[in-house]
């Protein structure tokens, strides 16, 4: 009867498990190496909301990176003689109170907003991620110290903390603002990572790797971190949006970027007082800002769905 159960495997005895239930149609020939990420990518590209949000971010990103691509006007060529002129063909967004072209302002204003958000976010991802990883992986006193540190920072309400720090630092440029956002926000990511590291460090495959003799660094970076990274990525996307908005809010509170630096935040906070008279002065930068924040959040959402094994 054994001839019946063995399905012609080279070794004999053990049957080859044929094409499993989850294999793609046998296209023959080449193996496509699909991973969770590849799957997620495919699903994301099919999601119209994600695609629109992504395109929007690409547009904003290119404004930040290559403003010249979008406008040939010099945003600093101003004249108080044409203060607050309504949108026209020549000035599609009109002019601001100093008579500068508002459209080119908006284009050039993308950079500080995006740079701050991107720098602060990469900071918290790297630093927060690392501390979270260490705390979660080693536990014990390492965890105690890092956790207390996180408690201290987290117990400071975010905006209050930012105000205190920025008034103290005083040099309010994109670096310091990014630094403060980073300094106040890293614990959240650290906490997320710590949580997912703690829950994944006892997973069977980590033990399996340990059992073949893998060292701590290998366990951490090869096995634990890649699996903890999905929630972090989702959070990071949302945080990017939050930081874009935070920059504007700090500027409104008078501790954000200062003239002559131009960001959407400064545009909004300078012109918010005119929103009854000349609403477009508020609407254009606000629209860009809200669009960016919205796009980041929606991208984060879509990413979460795509990476969530429950949905596959």
């Amino acid at each position: 009867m054994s001839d019946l159960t063995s399905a012609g495997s080279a070794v004999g005895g053990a049957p080859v498990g044929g094409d499993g239930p989850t294999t793609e149609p046998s296209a023959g020939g080449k193996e496509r190496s699909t991973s969770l990420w590849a799957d997620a990518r495919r699903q994301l590209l099919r999601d119209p909301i994600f695609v629109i949000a992504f395109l929007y971010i690409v547009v904003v990103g290119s404004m930040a990176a290559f403003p010249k691509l979008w406008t040939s006007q010099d945003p600093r060529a101003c004249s108080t003689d044409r203060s607050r002129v309504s949108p026209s063909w020549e000035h599609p967004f009109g002019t601001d109170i100093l008579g500068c072209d508002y459209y080119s302002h908006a284009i050039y204003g993308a950079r500080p907003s995006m740079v701050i958000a991107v720098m602060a976010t990469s900071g918290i991802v790297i630093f927060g991620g690392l501390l979270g990883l260490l705390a979660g992986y080693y536990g014990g006193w390492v965890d105690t110290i890092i956790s207390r540190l996180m408690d201290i920072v987290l117990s400071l309400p975010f905006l209050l903390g930012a105000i205190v720090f920025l008034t103290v630092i005083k040099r309010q440029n994109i670096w310091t603002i990014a630094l403060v956002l980073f300094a106040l926000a890293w614990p959240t990511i650290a906490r997320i990572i710590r949580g997912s590291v703690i829950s994944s460090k006892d997973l069977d495959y980590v033990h399996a790797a340990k059992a073949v003799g893998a060292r701590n660094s290998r366990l951490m970076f090869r096995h634990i971190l890649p699996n903890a990274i999905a929630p972090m990525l989702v959070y990071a996307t949302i945080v990017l949006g939050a930081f874009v908005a935070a920059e504007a809010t700090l500027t409104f509170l008078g501790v954000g970027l200062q003239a002559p630096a131009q960001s959407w935040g400064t545009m909004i906070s300078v012109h918010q007082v005119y929103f009854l008279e000349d609403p477009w002065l508020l609407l254009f930068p606000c629209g860009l800002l809200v669009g960016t924040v919205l796009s980041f959040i929606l991208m984060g959402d879509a990413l979460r769905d795509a990476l969530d094994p429950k949905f596959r």
Partner: protein
Amino acid sequence: MSDVVLETRDLVKHFPLTRGIVFKKQYGAVQAVDGVNLQLRRGETLGIVGESGCGKSTLARMLVGLETPTSGDLFVQGRNMSKVGAEERRRGRRNIQLVMQDPYTSLNPRMTVGDIIGEPFEVHPDVVPKGKRRAKVQELLDLVGLNPDHINRYPHQFSGGQRQRIGIARALALNPEIILCDEPVSALDVSIQAQVINLLEKLQAELGLSYIFIAHDLSVVRHIADRVAVMYLGKIIEIGTEDEIYDKPTHPYTQALLSAVPVPDPKLRGQRDQIVLTGDVPSPANPPSGCRFRTRCWKAQDICAEQEPLLVVRDKSDHPSACHFAEVRDVVHATE
């Protein structure tokens, strides 16, 4: 005794229960494994059975070095692993590999099959030279009956049985002598389970492996094991050859366990001598005094509470059994 490849002496694992923040105070311990003596001979399969929570996995984890014993010694090929340096321990660990219970969680979902099986080579670079690793991985895949072309696939593209084969291939990568299987088939369907069991047996025959095979399915253990140890609350309460345990069980717990296994034969219905135990397994944090089984035992007497029965051969049995009143009773073929 040169053919003993693995031996434990009084192996103990207690998980402390603590309270306090700065000054941790221990107020008790989960006695997960409490003084286990085992020997594993070359080429043999030692089955370990017992109810959930009795310490089987903890024992296994100590054997492969995932858990440090609280006390006791572990000898691998005569070397006391608790006395050697860290590096040697790491090398010694190569000799014992682990196959885990759940094929769905024991493989890293973000690594390809090739990476998973090849990982041991990266950890121990001296085993296979760099250039030959891929070929070796494919060889292993072939050995466990998977298509070597699937080396770049991810675990989720395989079924449970196939995943378990990947786990076995990973365990085989470092050419170990001992493979520890912690419930390797519990998560699989019967039809698939048989495939894996057959594979394990085939590999043992071909490669001369020694197995420690943990399961709570007594039929599977009987099928594969040469000798069987029965655990209860962190202790081995009976140990012997497969025939001795199944045909001539002497410990009341073993007897109850065996009698509770349903036999897939309706003709035997109502004819078997079923012993239905009452009550639950006591907490390992607070085990009963004396004999740990006495709270559920129908034979229990005063002595059982006072004196812990040793795992020795007694008058009415031919193999070691930790019961003061060890006595053979045929439960499987009871009334045939």
